[in-house]
């Protein structure tokens, strides 16, 4: 029986338009942040410093631009692949508006400094809860659509969407667990090494299951559609899917090589990361080979051009990723701009170009017209490609050479570049070129906006598209023992056995981990004082971790420059951990006690006074703003809940101790000729900075004898 029904195009249009809007906004913020790195004056105000704009940029491009692109593509393809309208128009609408509300609240709270201080998971707990809710609604809508489908077979793209939904839900919930202090402040449930492990398990899989798997689903739908030929090998696409999702989730620790994470966890991450080359390249080749015999059309059709570059960038990023997780290469690339180049190949190449191709393919179809100008789309394509090249190549050079500068010794065994700033100023040219690349890329996006507006004006939205398909017949369960189906398929049987064994193996390993905690405790490591804790929260609020690491790797070049390498046991009271992932400035783990209080005071007021040529933003507001001490008690109580060994009586007297410590710092500053009062934020920040990494220095005698 043939049934007639209608596809909901309006929701696709909404998601697609908002994708374009947030895309432009996100890229613009990225460009501003890039320029702030070369012109510190562009940091404007306390709400727009690099430390606050960088999270805004990453959240905007990941969750607003890419996120909405996923929803647009998924809502379009799901309906057609399943031959049905979405499960519920109301859910679709709530999903759309809910997601945009989340983005707007992110755009407000991040500049205000409300952050959990964990990369790509900065949003505070009320927004986290909203994300979880909207995500669940999206899931209901998607699975509801799958249940009422008129097509028995689930095309591979749908599997990619399902895996995305399941995994992102899990990642988001586990990583976001925190204890709220106020509406805009919470502490990560985990501390130090544990927090780092959870964060990068999340961070890596956010790349895997938010930026990769859903886009692979989009690729497997839109690339064949645009080329009008079936995917090169459907079988390969199925293998691609299952192997990718089973391997991806174990690769997170490669973000923490040479850190204080236990060695075995690091190695595990490396092994799985290297294995990822196989499925990733299988998928890339499958995409590119789909165009075999149609390359002449790639010359004509901008949509295919965008797709080809997107898939090629996917291939490049997924070759580079496993290589970067090999320890030796990682020791050079980590903390440098190499990584920034790497992620932008993925971000603006793979995600950006696939989205652009999708926009050019979808808009004419949704509006029942032709693209306004193929020529302008080609212009966009070339601007975008040039943008990627100008963005990435200078940063690859910069990252590599800066890392070599960090590691360079004179024949006498001294660091050649003693001052970190010198290495940064050497690569300033690359930052300019990167900003140029970003500008070109952004101009391309504006060309697209014009083209889309013109196309939309020429057509009329087909809000409900008529379609017809036969109703799905009920399948009869055939007789026989329930597992005969698998026994008839020896290959699958083998695969199942292997998976079962793998899972069994992991479960068997768990008890061995249980035997003893792998974080050695260091008796001299003590909880932060109330003032230091408040100072640390300012450090988190200002996003210092976006430019400064707190993780000295056990290399001679690093211990020489910064001091004793970081130990896992030093971070047990760090909620959240602040190891960072990028050194635009020097590592700060041993900054405690390195400079006098007055140095920090002047440095925060204007970094160039202490460090001529510094590219760090100035933080004069810290010298003026009063410290909010009303939260001290609740903060200490929250820490006690998290297991930090403060005395049960302590929260009540916390503020008294806070003031006392502050007075001490003020008195010291006075000796240096600085008049200030103890209730300023700067005092708390100085207290924290002077404390960082000093606990293990408490016993200099033993260290001396040990050597």
């Amino acid at each position, binding site marked *: 029986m043939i049934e*007639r029904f*209608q596809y909901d195009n309006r929701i696709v249009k909404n998601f697609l338009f908002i994708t374009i809007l947030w895309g432009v906004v996100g890229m613009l913020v990225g460009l501003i942040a890039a320029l702030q790195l070369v012109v510190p004056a562009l940091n404007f105000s306390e709400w727009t410093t690099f430390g606050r704009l960088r999270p805004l940029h990453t959240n905007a491009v990941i969750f607003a631009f890419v996120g909405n692109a996923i929803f647009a593509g998924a809502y379009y393809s799901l309906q*057609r*692949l399943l031959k049905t309208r979405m499960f519920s*128009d109301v859910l679709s609408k709530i999903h759309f508006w809910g997601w945009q509300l989340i983005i707007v609240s992110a755009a407000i709270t991040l500049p205000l400094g409300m952050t959990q201080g964990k990369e790509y998971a900065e949003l505070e707990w009320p927004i986290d809860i909203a994300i979880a809710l909207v995500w669940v609604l999206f899931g209901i809508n998607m699975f509801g659509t799958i249940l009422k489908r008129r*097509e*028995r*077979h689930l*095309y*591979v793209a749908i*599997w990619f969407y399902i*895996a995305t939904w*399941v995994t992102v839900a*899990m990642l988001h919930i*586990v990583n976001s667990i925190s204890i709220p202090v106020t509406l805009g402040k919470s502490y990560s449930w*985990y501390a130090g*090494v*544990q*927090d780092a*492990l*959870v964060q990068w*398990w999340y961070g890596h899989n956010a790349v895997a299951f938010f930026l990769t798997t859903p886009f692979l689903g989009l690729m497997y*739908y839109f690339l*064949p*559609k645009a080329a*009008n*030929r*079936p*995917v090169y090998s*459907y*079988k390969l*696409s199925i293998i691609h899917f299952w192997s990718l999702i*089973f391997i991806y*989730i*174990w690769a997170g620790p490669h973000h923490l090589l040479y850190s204080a994470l236990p060695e075995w*966890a690091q190695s595990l991450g490396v092994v799985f990361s290297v294995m990822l080359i196989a499925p990733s390249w299988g998928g890339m080749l499958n995409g590119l080979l789909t165009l075999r015999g149609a390359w002449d059309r790639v010359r004509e059709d901008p949509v295919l051009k965008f797709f080809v570059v997107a898939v090629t960038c996917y291939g490049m990023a997924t070759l580079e990723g496993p290589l970067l997780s090999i320890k030796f290469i990682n020791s050079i690339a980590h903390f440098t701009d190499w990584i920034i180049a790497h992620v932008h190949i993925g971000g603006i190449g793979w995600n950006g170009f696939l989205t652009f191709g999708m926009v050019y393919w979808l808009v004419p179809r949704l*509006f*029942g017209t032709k693209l306004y100008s193929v020529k302008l789309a080609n212009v966009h394509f070339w601007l975008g490609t040039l943008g990627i090249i100008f963005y990435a190549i200078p940063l690859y050079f910069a990252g590599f050479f800066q890392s070599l500068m960090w590691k360079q010794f004179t024949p006498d065994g001294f660091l050649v570049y003693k001052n970190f700033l010198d290495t940064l100023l050497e690569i300033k040219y690359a930052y300019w070129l990167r900003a140029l690349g970003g500008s070109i890329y952004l101009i391309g996006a504006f060309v697209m906006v014009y083209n889309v507006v013109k196309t939309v004006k020429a*057509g*009329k*939205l*087909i*809000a*409900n598209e*008529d379609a*017809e*398909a036969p109703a799905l017949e009920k399948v009869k369960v055939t007789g026989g023992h329930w597992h005969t*189906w*698998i026994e008839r*398929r020896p290959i*699958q049987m083998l695969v*199942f056995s292997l*998976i079962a064994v793998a*899972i069994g193996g*992991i479960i068997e390993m*768990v008890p061995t*981990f249980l035997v003893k*905690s*792998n*974080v050695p405790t260091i008796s001299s490591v003590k909880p932060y004082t109330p003032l230091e804790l408040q100072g640390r929260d300012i450090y988190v609020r200002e996003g210092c971790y976006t430019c400064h690491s707190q993780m000295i790797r056990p290399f001679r070049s690093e211990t020489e420059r910064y001091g004793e390498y970081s130990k896992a046991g030093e971070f047990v009271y760090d909620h959240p951990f602040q190891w960072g992932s990028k050194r635009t400035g020097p590592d700060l783990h041993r900054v405690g006690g390195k400079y006098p209080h007055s140095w920090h005071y002047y440095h925060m007021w204007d970094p160039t006074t202490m460090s001529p040529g510094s590219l760090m933003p100035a933080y004069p507001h810290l010298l003026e703003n009063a410290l909010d001490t009303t939260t001290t008690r609740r903060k200490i109580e929250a820490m006690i809940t998290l297991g930090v060994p403060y005395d049960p009586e302590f929260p009540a007297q916390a503020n008294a101790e806070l003031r006392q410590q502050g007075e001490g710092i003020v008195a010291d500053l006075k000796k240096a000729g600085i008049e200030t009062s103890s209730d300023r934020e700067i005092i708390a920040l100085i207290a924290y900075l002077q404390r960082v990494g000093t606990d293990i220095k408490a016993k200099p005698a033993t260290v001396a004898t040990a050597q």
Partner: protein
Amino acid sequence: MSVIFLLLTVSTLVAGVFLLGFIWAVSRGQYDDDRSPAVRILLDDRVGPIQPSTDNEQP
């Protein structure tokens, strides 16, 4: 490092969910035919010629 148990458990759980999905897919014969689905998605099920719908609201 006790958090590793949480991560392993959750990851394994999700892997288990995927495994069930895989078993389901194979048992339902989702992969019996690995050629025609790729071609089928190329066919449009639109009714009649492309025309802007007169009714832009929910039917």
